[in-house]
């Protein structure tokens, strides 16, 4: 693990060993529940979570990347560590997810600043090392760009659905992708969130600490805001409709199209016997083979693997996407027609 200075721990508190940090600073968790001065920090920690739950980034006491007040540093780290304790005590996974994402966004800002810092080479190097150590992305500085191997880039970029992240929309040269500091950091946002999330999930849940109860209860009621209900229209997405049309006309639907149609209908709960007749107009129809393949996809024969419906992105590559405005930026045909209602109470 990296050796971090005080201000770096404040910027990237998830890199610190929480227990060790408290010990080094000479505190125990119980003290935060009982000591009136320290108790404010629980309030601060709660606030840090509440802001995150609202989808905003917690406004830190750190001013830029230097610190105005030496007392602010440990406070900043404590509020992060206490927030984790509160989240563990409340057991609310939706809040942990939102908190991790917001903290990732916060750290992202610092990483970006550190990467772009041309006056302090050590800051630059630290950011590059954090990215390499945590996410195995080998960043190299080249003039004003950060360049990373294409294979490295792809491992992360495939998680994005915006077209600008597609490799084709990137500056590619000599096996490397050229990125700005902002893009470099943005590339690992999801993994940073996942990293923080897994650190929290894997942290030990302490027994309830006197003085923490109120904040924990507040978190439990806060999390109720985020229950979502899903309503489905039941209509098929255009890609599936198109595939059915092709088959009805007796034209040839490529293997990839058949795979999409079958996995889609299986996921919607249709039984194999009901799906098989759809293929009977195909030029090469063979009932025995069709049933075998459908059972294979459903996982009822063969290896037992249940195959899932390909993503919109994959269908685009295969020329099977016929998106309409009704698709509404879904990322998998199975989401078509689903309306999310946030039950804000």
């Amino acid at each position, binding site marked *: 693990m990296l050796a971090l200075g005080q201000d770096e721990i404040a910027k990237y508190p998830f890199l610190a060993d929480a227990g060790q940090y408290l010990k080094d600073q000479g505190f125990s968790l119980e003290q935060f529940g009982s000591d009136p001065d320290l108790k404010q920090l629980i309030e601060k920690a709660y606030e840090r979570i509440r802001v995150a739950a609202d989808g905003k980034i917690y406004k830190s006491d750190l001013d830029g990347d230097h610190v105005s007040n030496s007392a602010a540093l440990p406070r900043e780290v404590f509020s992060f560590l206490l927030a984790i304790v509160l989240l563990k005590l409340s057991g609310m996974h939706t809040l942990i997810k939102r908190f991790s994402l917001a903290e990732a966004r916060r750290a992202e800002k610092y990483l970006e600043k550190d990467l772009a810092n041309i006056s302090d080479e050590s800051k630059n190097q630290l950011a590059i090392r954090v990215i390499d150590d945590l996410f195995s992305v080998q960043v190299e500085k080249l003039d004003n760009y950060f360049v990373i191997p294409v294979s490295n880039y792809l*491992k992360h970029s*495939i998680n994005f659905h915006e077209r*600008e992240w597609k*490799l*084709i929309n990137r*500056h590619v040269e000599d096996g490397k992708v050229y990125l700005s500091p902002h893009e470099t950091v943005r590339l690992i946002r999801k993994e940073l969130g996942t990293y923080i999330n897994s650190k929290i999930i894997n942290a030990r849940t302490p027994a309830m600490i006197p003085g923490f109860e109120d904040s924990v209860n507040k978190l439990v009621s806060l999390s109720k805001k985020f229950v979502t209900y899903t309503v489905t229209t039941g209509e098929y997405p255009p890609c599936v409709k198109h595939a059915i049309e092709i088959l009805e006309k007796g034209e040839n639907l490529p*293997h990839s199209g058949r795979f999409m149609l079958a996995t889609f209908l299986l996921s919607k709960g249709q039984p194999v016997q009901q799906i098989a007749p759809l293929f009977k107009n195909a030029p090469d129809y063979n009932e025995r083979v069709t049933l075998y393949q459908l059972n294979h996809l459903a996982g009822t024969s063969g290896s037992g693997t249940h195959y899932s419906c390909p993503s919109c992105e*994959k269908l685009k590559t295969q020329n099977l996407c016929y998106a309409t405005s009704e698709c509404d930026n879904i990322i998998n045909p199975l989401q078509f027609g689903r309306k999310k209602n946030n039950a804000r109470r």
Partner: protein
Amino acid sequence: MQDVDIKFLENSFKKYYFEHFDQIKVPGRTSEREFGYQKFNSGMTRHIAIKDNKELHLMIIQNIPSDIYCSNAYYTFPNLPMNEKDWKEADLIFDIDAKDLNLSCRENHTVSICNECNEVTKNTSQCSKCNSTKLEKKSLTCKNCINASKTEVSKLSEVLIDDFAITKDNIHVYFSGNEGFHVYVYDSQFQEIGSRERSELTDYISLRGSIPETFGMKKLKQDRASFPDFDEKGWRGRFAKQIFGSKSKRSKIITELLTNGYSSFQKTLDDLSESIGVKIDPNVTMDIHRIFRLPGSINSKSGLTKIQCNDLTKFDPYIEASFLSDDTVEIFANCPIEFKLKNKTFGPYINEIVTVPTFAAVYMICKKLARIA
């Protein structure tokens, strides 16, 4: 296919394998790969592990397969079921097939075989005899198809070398034995990437999914300076060469592009993908568990051999990939299209008994356009 035809094909293939074992070698890291084969009129046998050339040759002689395959992937346990194999990495493979190139010549050398009544006609959408629409298409690939496929191979190599820093030595080109080429890339940074990443690579190579901003066109705040220049690397450079043509026209064309607007520019990009994007089959590249025809083995769609092309420009598959014997055989042929093999022209044959060399007989029987008389 009737038994006597299968027997004939098996004998011809067996003779080839006996006489050309030097052509059929196991690929590197043999014991980590999965092998498979098919016999005539039978399903696929796969999940086979093979140690060396000797074992491979034994498998061939024991089974006389119609087709032999080998994985591009490396596994810890290649002979176990798919989810227990423990996938390690896979060579990057591209498939360029003449049938995907939308060539105008295809119409002239494609025949339709009716699945219901076996009637053979020149390319049609409905059987002229029984009106069935269940037709099997067979193409007798022409020189134009091969040349167009070669062009795609060259375009692909250029992108691989210039954009992805792959060395020329690590790119091997094979004639597939039927209508196209397989391009293998060894020891690249892409060995360990998965299926979704490979799919992104194929989009890049085929210039698919690009947005106007990438080539300098913006919705608001238009800026002439952000359009590509001739000396730029990658697709921006290729865009400049294709769209501007010459340096002197650059300025004038940028003005036109700006006047036509953003959505028209998107259309330009889609057309560009069609004209200069490399036409590879994305499904082949992104399948990391596939088994590919083994180099040196015969393709049962044609009777031609899958062989490596060392000089692509000069390569003529209809001379160099035809290894079957010249011994003549009598067949009943219904092949309405003329074709050329080993510098000899055959057909058209309309429901007639003809005597032809084995290599030509095999070609027609494989295409279901003839049977042993």
